[in-house]
C-alpha cells in the first residue's frame, strides 16, 4: 500500500525525488565503506589464504602446486583427531555449563537482596579481563600449590589434579569464568527488553514469580540465550591461550596444534588445512543452530 501511495508524488516531481534518493543511497554507501569494507577485506582475505594455502596454491614456503596431501595428514593423523575431539569437548562442556549457570544467575538477580547492585557491577569484571589473566587467577586458585590445595593441606586433605589434566577441567573452569558473564550480560539485556506489561499481566492473573520466569521470561529470552550459546561455543572451540597454558601434554587443543604447525614447524599447508577444517566445523555448527531455531519457531507457530 505504501508504495502505491508514494506514486503520485513521484509523478509530480519524479526526477528530483529519484535524484535525492540516489544521492542519499550514495551517501549511505560512502559512510558504510570504511568500516564494512575493512571488515570484509579482513575476513575474506584470510579465508582465501587458508583455502588456497591448504591445497598448496599460495607461495608460502616451497610451493609444489595443487595437492590434497595436507588434508590427508590432518584427517588420517590420530593426534589431530584427538585434538579435534578435545576442542569440541571443551567447547560443548563450556557452552552447556555456561548457559545453565547464566540462567540460574539471571533468575537469582531478579530477586531483591542486599548487595545486589554490587553484584550487578562485579559480574562484568571478567568481560574486561583478558583470558590470560583469567588463566593466571584460576591457576593460583586450583593449581598444584594453589589456594585450594593450601587450604586442603591445612585440613589434611588431598587436592585433585585440576590443571594439565586430560579431561581439561582447568581449561573449562577458566573458559566458564570468562563466558558466564558474557552470556549473563546478553541474557539480562534480553530480559530487560521484555515488555513490563506482559510480566505484570501474568502476575495480576495470579502467576507466581517462578512460574512467570518459567512461562513468560524464559521463552521470550530463549533466542538471545541461544545466540549467546553459539558465540560461546565458537569462542571456546577456537580458544588457544587457555588450552596452551593449562592443557595436558596430550591431547592438545586443535588451535594449539595449528599454531605449533604454523609458527614452530613452518608447516603452512598443514596449518591452513586445520584452519579449513575448523572453519567448516564452525559453519556446520551455525547451520545446525539455524535449523534448530527455525524448527523451534515452526513448532511454536504450529
Amino acid at each position, binding site marked *: 500500500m505504501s508504495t502505491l501511495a508514494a506514486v503520485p508524488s513521484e509523478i509530480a516531481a519524479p526526477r528530483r525525488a529519484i535524484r535525492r534518493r540516489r544521492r542519499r543511497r550514495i551517501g549511505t554507501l560512502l559512510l558504510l565503506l570504511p568500516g564494512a569494507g575493512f571488515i570484509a577485506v579482513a575476513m575474506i582475505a584470510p579465508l582465501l589464504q587458508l583455502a588456497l594455502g591448504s591445497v598448496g596454491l599460495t607461495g608460502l614456503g616451497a610451493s609444489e602446486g595443487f595437492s590434497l596431501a595436507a588434508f590427508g595428514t590432518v584427517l588420517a593423523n590420530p593426534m589431530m583427531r584427538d585434538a579435534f575431539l578435545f576442542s569440541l569437548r571443551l567447547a560443548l562442556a563450556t557452552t552447556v555449563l555456561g548457559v545453565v549457570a547464566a540462567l540460574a544467575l539471571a533468575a537469582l538477580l531478579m530477586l531483591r537482596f542486599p548487595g545486589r547492585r554490587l553484584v550487578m557491577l562485579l559480574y562484568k569484571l571478567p568481560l574486561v579481563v583478558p583470558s590470560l589473566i583469567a588463566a593466571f587467577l584460576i591457576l593460583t586458585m586450583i593449581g598444584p600449590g594453589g589456594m585450594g590445595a593450601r587450604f586442603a593441606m591445612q585440613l589434611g586433605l588431598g587436592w585433585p589434579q585440576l590443571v594439565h589434566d586430560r579431561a581439561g577441567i582447568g581449561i573449562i573452569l577458566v573458559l566458564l569464568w570468562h563466558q558466564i558473564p558474557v552470556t549473563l550480560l546478553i541474557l539480562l539485556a534480553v530480559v*530487560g527488553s521484555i515488555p513490563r506489561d506482559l510480566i505484570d499481566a501474568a502476575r495480576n492473573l495470579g502467576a507466581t514469580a517462578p512460574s512467570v520466569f518459567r512461562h513468560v521470561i524464559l521463552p521470550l529470552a530463549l533466542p538471545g540465550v541461544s545466540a549467546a550459546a553459539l558465540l560461546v561455543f565458537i569462542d571456546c572451540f577456537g580458544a588457544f591461550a587457555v588450552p596452551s597454558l593449562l592443557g595436558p601434554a596430550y591431547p592438545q587443543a586443535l588451535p594449539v596444534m595449528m*599454531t605449533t604447525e604454523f609458527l614452530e614447524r613452518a608447516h603452512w599447508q598443514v596449518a591452513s588445512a586445520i584452519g579449513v577444517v575448523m572453519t567448516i566445523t564452525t559453519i556446520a555448527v551455525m547451520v545446525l543452530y539455524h535449523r534448530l531455531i527455525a524448527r523451534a519457531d515452526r513448532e511454536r507457530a504450529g
Partner: protein
Amino acid sequence: MNPVWSLRSPLLGWCLGFAVLAGAALVFALPIATAVLWSLVDPEVGWFPPHILPASLSFANWHDMLAVPELEEALGRSFLIAVLVTSLCAILGLPTGYALGRGRFPGRRAIEVLVLTPLMMPGIVLAIGLGGIFMRIGLSQTLTGVVLVQTAVILPLSIRILAATAQSIPSDLIDAATNLGAGPASLARHILVPLLLPGLLAAALLSFIASLEEFLLSFVVGMPTIQTLPMLLWAYLGGRSAILSYAAVVTVALLIPTLLVLVVVERVLKQEYLAAGFGKA
C-alpha cells in the same frame, strides 16, 4: 530495566545476599588478592604450600621487572598499539556505525551480519590466515601488522556500540533541526556530536582495553619481534618457563587500567550498548 522481585521475608533476602556476595568474593576477590600477594612475594623467602599467607612481602619482583627492559618495552608498545587501534576503530567505525544505526537501505541486514563475522569466526582461523598473508607482504612482525589484525577483531565492537548510540537519537530531533534550516554542519555540531559523544567515548574505552588485552592475533603476527604485555604474560605463565611472581606483576599491571575502565564504562555506558558490543544478535 530488569524486573526485580522482593522476597517474602527480609531475613531470606539477607541470607541470599550473604551467599551471593560470598560466592563473588570466592570467584573474584580471592583470586585478585592472591595475584597481588604473588606479585609481592619476597623472592628470598618464597611462598610455599601449605602456607596460606606469604611469610614476608617485598617489592623485589616489581623492582626486578621494572629493571628488565622487557616489561617497559612491552608496556610502551602495548599502549602505543592501543592508541593506534582505538583511533583507527573510531575513524573507521563512526561513519559505518552511524549509517547502520540511522539509515534504512537494502542489504542492511547483510552488512550487520558482515560486521559480526569477526565474532563468529574462531580467532585462530583469522590469526593464521592473516598471519600467512602478512608473511608474504612483509607485514609480519611489524607494528603496522599487529595494529591491523587487532583492528580487524576490535572494529565490530566499536561499530556496534556506535550503531546502537546512533539508533537511540530521536528522529524528531534531526527532523526538527532540518526543518528549522540547520545545514549538515550545524546539525552535526549541535545534535549529532553531543548525542554521539557518550557512545564514541564508550567505544573508544572498550577498544582501548580490548587492544591492550588482545593476545592471539598479536601473538601469531607479532611474535617474537613485537612483544605486547599479554605476550609477556603468556611467556611468564609457562610459554617459556613459569615464573609465577613475574606473571603476577604483569597481571596486576594489566588489571589496574582494566578495573578503572570497567568503572568508567559502567558510568557512561548503558547496559544495552555493552550487550550490543559483545555481540547480542
